[in-house]
């Protein structure tokens, strides 16, 4: 493997880690917000 490939691999690890972290975080946040909204809708339906 050439030196340039090692540099590319190192920066790819960094970018992949940031993207993976943000993706997992985004999925968790959207699921939580969706469930919160569902709870609020159920509450509104129950009140009507």
């Amino acid at each position: 493997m050439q030196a340039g490939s090692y540099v590319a691999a190192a920066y790819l690890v960094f970018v992949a880690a940031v993207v993976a972290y943000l993706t997992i975080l985004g999925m968790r946040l959207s699921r939580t917000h969706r469930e919160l909204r569902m709870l609020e809708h159920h509450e509104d339906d129950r009140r009507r």
Partner: protein
Amino acid sequence: MTDGDRRRLVHLSLASGVAVAAALMLVFFYAPRDADQGVIQKIFYIHVPMAIVALGGFIAAAALAVQYLRTGDRRWDVRSYVTIHLSLVVAVVVLMTGSIWARASWGHWWVWNEPTLVSFLIMFLLYCTYQPMRFAIEDAERQARYASVFAILAGAFVPLNFLAVRLAQAYTHPRVLGPTGGSMPGAMRLTFAACLGAVVLLYVTLWSLELTAKDAAARLRRARRQPPGLVTS
């Protein structure tokens, strides 16, 4: 989360995105090629700032844990927990980028008789026990208290460990910063500073986003526990 918090998060995310992009541009288009190591030295621009941020994060987590023990406010414990969690992720990247550099420079993925590498691994493994220990305790208050004590003790170990390694004579790991090594020329120093700033900003952004996610999850748990008729977001 208020509109002000949301705006602050958006600004922080944009700033860290721009800072990371600018730092990468400096690494690949501005920083000169190292006369000794050649192009593989460019790995240090990401590896070293991330190592500094990971270790700084562990120390910050200890300070946040002290705040929790002083005040009893659970928010400090959550902040300490998120800091350790994020520093562990950063530490994984440090170990991986370090291994890639070691393979390119030394011909080995890992060198067991190198104090810098082994001490960092020991610290990483120590912090890997934090989450299992924390979540093995069911009572929330005891969990926060024990986790804080762990964070403080482990956090105190970080600078001690760093100093012990610095004082060790038999090392082959290069010193990027210090009185005897790493006298970088101006362009390299500027690039390194930009990379460090970008990684710090990225860490703060991810930390804030993670705290927001934790806050939303806590609100959801509270809403689920409330009797019907009292659910509010």
